[in-house]
Structure formats: C-alpha cells, structure tokens
C-alpha cells in the first residue's frame, strides 16, 4: 500500500474528481462569452459544492445547497438575465476593463480562507465510517450554541427584504 492505513482513498479520489470539475466550471464562468452559459457553469460549481458536502457526510447541508443555490438563487439569477439581456451566442462586451483587479481579490480571499480553515480544522480527520449528522443534531446546534449568529443572520435577511420593498415601491 502506498497510502497510510488511515487515508480514505475512495473519498480522496472522489474529492479530486469533483474539485477538478468545480475548478474547470469556475474558470468557464469567467471566461465564457455568454451570460446564460456563465450562469449554467456556476450551477456546475454549486452542484459540485453540494457533492463535496455529501462526501463529508453532511447531507442536510448538501440538500440545503441544492434547494437554496440551484433551486432558488440561480433560477432567480437566470430569470433576471433573461428578462433584461440574454442574447443567444457570444457577446463581446461582457468583460469590464478593470477585470484584472479581481485576481488579487480572489487570491487574497483564497489565502484568508485557507489560513482560517487550516487553523480551525487542520488537525482534524474524517473518521473512516463517519456518522451522518441528523437534522435534529443540526437544529440543536443552531438553536443552542449558535442562536445569536442565527438571529444576526435573520436580521441581515430582514434588511434585504426591507430594501427590496423600498426599491420596488415608488410611492
């Protein structure tokens, strides 16, 4: 065996395949010359994230990812683009001339998240037979130790709703 006995080979291969698809999808989101194609590549990336959650035995989070991001956010996104400007075929004027500012932002974000994840979870390992977190455990966590962040997040949503009403009502 070339791997140590506690390395999960199948999970790692699965992770690598899904991660490769996600990276290709993410690159195509910014390089494709059609708005709707970009949105659909983004769907591939988000679906890949859901698949990674399944690999981590977090099925509730994976389902939430599908419901919220693919079923709602991307549909609204496509709805919005199709309602306003979504031509078939390539468009030349999609790139903003300041696009390269995005690169340092992306790199900085990647480094920050990598450091945060490594210092937070770097020493932890997936157990060989992970037990799937039940919905009850997740709700016990959310409505127990994480109640305050949960409330704070719901105020963010409330602010978004109020903002949407203010924008939509013209009287």
């Amino acid at each position: 065996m070339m791997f140590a006995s506690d390395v999960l080979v199948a999970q790692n291969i699965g992770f690598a395949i899904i991660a490769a698809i996600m990276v290709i999808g993410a690159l195509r989101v910014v390089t494709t010359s059609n708005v709707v194609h970009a949105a659909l590549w983004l769907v591939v990336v988000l679906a890949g994230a859901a698949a990674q959650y399944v690999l981590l035995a977090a099925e509730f989070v994976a389902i939430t990812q599908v419901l919220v991001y693919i079923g709602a956010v991307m549909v609204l996104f496509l709805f919005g683009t199709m309602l306003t400007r979504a031509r078939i075929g390539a468009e030349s004027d999609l790139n903003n001339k300041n696009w390269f500012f995005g690169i340092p932002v992306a790199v900085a974000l990647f480094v920050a998240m990598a450091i945060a994840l490594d210092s937070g979870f770097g020493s932890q390992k997936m157990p060989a037979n992970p037990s799937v977190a039940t919905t009850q455990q997740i709700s016990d966590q959310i409505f127990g130790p994480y109640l305050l962040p949960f409330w704070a997040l719901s105020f963010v949503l409330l602010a978004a709703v109020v903002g949407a009403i203010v924008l939509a009502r013209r009287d």
Partner: protein
Amino acid sequence: MNLATLLASDLPYWAQSLLRVLGGLVAVLLPAGTVVYLFLFKMMSFMQSRLGPMEAGPQGSMQLFAEVGKWLQKEDIYPARADKFIFKLAPLIVLASTFLLVVVVPFGPDALFTDFESGVFYALAVSSVSVLGILIAGWASANKYSLLGGLRAAGQLIAYELPMVLAVVGVVIQAGTMNLQQIVVAQNAGSMFGFSSLGNPYVLTQFVGFIVFMIAVQAELTQTPFDMPIAESELVSGYMTEYSGFRFLIFFIGEFATAGVFSMIASVLFLGGWAVPFSWFGWTSIDSIDNWMNVVGPLILFTKMLAVVFFIMWVRFSYPRFREDQLQKFAWKVLIPVSLANIMVTAILKVAF
C-alpha cells in the same frame, strides 16, 4: 416488485445498483404510462362525451406505445438560431429531476431505494431543479413565446414552491421526523383518541396542509388552472413550442411521471403511504411487519397514487386558467398565510398534547 428481499440478501454492489436503476425506471415510467392512458386519454374523453383512442389494443390501451413509436421516428429538429447544446440539455434536466425525486419514496417496509434521514427536505430540493431545465428550455429555443413561457414557469414554480414546503412542515411537526418511511410508520402505528383501527392518516389532522399541498402540486405540475406557462391560446405551447419528436417525448414523460411521483409523495405524507393501519394485523413496529407487505405495499401505494392523480386531472379538465396576477396573488396572499397559520396551530397543538 420484490426488490427488497432481493436487496436484503447478499448481492454484490453492482447487482444492487442495477436492481435499483431498474426499479427506478419502473417506478417512474409505469405511473407515467398509467396516468397518460387512464386519465389523459380515457377520463378526459369520457368527461367530454367521446370515446378517446379505441383502435390500438383493447379499449385503445396500446395507444401510448403507438404514440411513443411515432415520436421516436420523427426528425430531430431544432431552430436555426437556437443554442443547440442547451436546447438538448434542458429536457434531460427536467427528467433527471423526476428520477431524483422517486428515490426517496418508500414502497414497502423494505422496498425502498434509500432510507433517507431528511427525505422530505430532499424531495422538495430536487423538485426545484426542474425549474432550471424549463427556464433554459425557453431561453435556448430562440423564440419569444418560448422565452415568455419559460419566464412564466419560473415565476409560478418559485411562487408555489413556498406553500408546498410550508404545507409539508405541518406533517413533519406532527410526525416528528423528515424520513418518509418514519412518516408512514407514524401514521399507521398511531391512533386517534385511542381508536387505532384507522391509524392516524394526516389527511384528517392536516387537512389544511393537504389542500394547500395539492394546490401547490397542481401548480408545480403546470396543470390546467395553473397552466399559464404553456397557455396554448397565447404562447402556442410555452417553453415546449420548439420541441418535437424525441425531446418533446421527454418533456411529456417528465410531466406525467412527475405527476405520478408527486402523487406518491402526497400519499406518503397524508394518506398513510404503502402501509395499512398496523392494528389490522397486530403489528407493533416496522420490524414486525410481515414480508408480504413488500409486494402488497407497492400496490397499495400505486392505488393511492391513482386516486390522487384522479383529483389532479379532475381539476385539470374542469377549470379555466388563472390570469398571471391572480395566480401570483393566490400563492402569496392566500396559500402562504394559510400554511403559516397551519404551522402555528400544529406546533401549538403538538406542544399542548
């Protein structure tokens, strides 16, 4: 369909997977074919005082095979200005959502594809994926009627997904679980006021939730009072306008297979699913159920599914179409407040008793 006893024995993994795939095909295509023949061909004809298809097979029962043969022979046409890849991809996304939906439906004590902890939540999530397929089908057709149909469909499906989720929450609160198999057990092992020979089908206690759920299902399936997206008098055929032959067949199968699967989920959530009340045969828990229920259970579920589809089709053939603003107002101003009130009442009663 004695899938479960086979799966329970020591089959290799590939054989189990193959059996699951075949079972999934049966569980999707059999309801679709039955629904199309019984309701779309025959019931619709009888309600309109005509005979319907009579030539192919006894009482025209082979008509569907003839239709499928016709569709498969047709030329594969797409509009010259269409986005070809997405045009071809869209019907597959719609059909894939149906297949993903059927895997959580329990058919018997052991006859299930997967015993999923958060089954209800999963079903609601994957059913929303079909919106994506419909939306890009409308866009990729390069046709303004198709695009309008796709946009109408997306607006409608998003609006009616919310009351559907909220209606199911009442059942989840009452059963105390999101596992569809456990919901079946909770209904049939339960009792009402100590009277256990009927079990406790949630259609009685969650009647408001059931009505809201069925209206939302009607809208999710874009069946007639809610068929704004394919309104034939305004939009030719909505997002399906440019589809013909094999690709239209996929949309067609998807529509009626989803009707069947949603009706199965409605039967599982509200009508007791595959089981009979446990007190009839002296069962106490899911482990004490006799093995023959793995054969009878799917038949019971199938019968309940047909009954539910009957109501969906009855409404479809009886009512005229909603206007777009009526449709949105109905979802946001009637169904969602009603289902929220239902959740509150259910939660209060659950804590009180």
